[in-house]
């Protein structure tokens, strides 16, 4: 469980990135933290594995104050996949890359081998085992970065802008993958401004703006609210935009999916005949 208690955070250069943030994320939840670039999303999640410590207030991971424990210890539980895999990759082979964290966490040799095999299989990277990560394509490098974090099986997984630069096929794969991880009991937290992706996944949405949480609830309530969308400098989901324009004809505003949209239109048409 992640508990954030009235956290304030100011960067050394004086920027006030978090201004009184409180929230609770229970085990096994699937959460999307959304907002404009600069709203404080990444700053917030960096508190979950101790990379940042609050200037005021506190963050508890399973009851332990993050200020009392090292980043390495917290990372055992909280895996963080950074936005740009090129900020992590440095090994000679994909295998070495995946075993890096396992070695740091002092896993047994035998366990390391098992976990590396498992991670390679899970992310479809078996044929690249002995290949240098630098020789792989952008999408493949992203998978290696993900594999290297999943390898140590953290119970909480944070993905920072996982859909950046991905084509629709890759995004669909990612979506299925996230759902799979969540079904296996992992707490999954994604930091993103990709509205259409979130609409497909329908997680709990925490909306941030200017260092504060301005909304916390279901995708459907939050991403269809024009006022909230405005305050966080996002845009309404495509289908919601369509129905917002049709509101004067008596249609509801909070429609997000293609099939429910069709159903509503058909009902209206059939209602006449």
């Amino acid at each position, binding site marked *: 469980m992640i508990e954030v208690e009235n956290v304030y955070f100011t960067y050394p250069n004086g920027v006030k990135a978090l201004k009184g943030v409180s929230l609770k994320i229970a085990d096994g939840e699937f959460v999307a933290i959304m907002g404009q670039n600069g709203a404080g999303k990444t700053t917030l999640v960096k508190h979950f594995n101790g990379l940042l410590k609050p200037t005021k207030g506190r963050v508890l991971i399973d009851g332990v104050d993050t200020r009392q424990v090292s980043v390495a210890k917290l990372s055992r539980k909280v895996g963080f996949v950074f936005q740009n895999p090129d900020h992590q990759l440095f090994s000679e082979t994909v295998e070495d890359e995946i075993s890096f964290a396992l070695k740091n966490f002092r896993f047994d040799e035998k366990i390391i081998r098992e976990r590396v095999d498992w991670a390679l299989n899970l992310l479809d990277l078996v044929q690249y085992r002995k290949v240098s990560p630098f020789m792989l394509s952008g999408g493949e490098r992203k998978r290696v970065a993900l594999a290297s974090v999943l390898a140590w099986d953290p119970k909480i997984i944070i993905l920072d802008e996982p859909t950046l630069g991905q084509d629709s096929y890759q995004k669909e794969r990612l979506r299925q993958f996230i759902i799979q991880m969540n079904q296996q009991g992992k707490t999954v937290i994604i930091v993103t401004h990709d509205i259409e992706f979130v609409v497909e996944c329908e997680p709990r949405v925490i909306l941030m703006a200017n260092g504060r949480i301005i909304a916390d609830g279901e995708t459907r309530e939050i991403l269809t609210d024009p006022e909230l969308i405005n305050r966080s400098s*996002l845009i309404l989901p495509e289908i919601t935009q369509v129905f917002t324009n049709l509101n004067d004809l008596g249609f509801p505003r909070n429609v997000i999916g293609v099939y429910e949209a069709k159903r509503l239109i058909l009902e209206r*048409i059939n209602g006449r005949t």
Partner: protein
Amino acid sequence: MAIIEARDLTYTYPFAEKPAFKNINLRIEKGEFVLLTGPSGCGKTTICRCLNGLIPHFYGGKLEGELTVAGLKTTEHAIYEIAKHVGLVFQNPENQLFALTVEKDVAFGLENLGVPRDEIRRRVDWALKITGIYELRHRAPFELSGGQQQRVAIASVLAMQPEIIVLDEPTSSLDPLSAKNILEVIHQLNRDLGITIILVEHRLDLASRYANRVIVMRDGRIVLDGEPRRIFLQRETKLIGVGIPKVVRLYLSLREDGVNLNKVPLSPEEASQLIAEALMLDRS
């Protein structure tokens, strides 16, 4: 005469086993707004690099066939010559801005071309105003947001007054609102200044409303080429993994159930308009 013409174009990167693309045949007329899309690795970024001569002059490798851009055969002219006619805006805004102030960056290309100072000043101010960043001209690129940086990149290419501007996934690192705004700017360049636009994009929900033509690539080949509404209807588009806008999916879904909207919508505004029309008809 077409402003871009490719004939049997094939390119292999140095040390690569197979070509990045093969036998590309393409004709683009002046003033078109072309949306180039396809799954990752299909060759669209490579095509962009050919259009201003980075391939073959900067990258080396083997370029076969013929590519003529604004009347120049790219193999026979240096990049700096082609750059006067073709501007290229890259994906990552940060790595294409070198100067310590915005206006110096926008002036960079003109300075390289040896344009006289007062002409530089005139064109820089003009480009800054069109892209809406005149007030930012004394700021440092590091202080700007991604969207603002991308505008600076566009302005610095625009200042050279090319006939063609190629943009390689310019919105990929931007949030949706900034993405929308940048695409509006690009649209204005096409509509108001007549600049031919080649836009490589995944975000078809935001970009397709501006294009008069969509080209879909896969595995180094052009598989679909035509008007957006027609292309999105074709089954192959979805199979290739191109992210069709949700409003198009809604159109297709309604059609399956016998409701035919008057045309394929390319934006939410169009979609709601068409749905309203369909409902009015049924009211009679």
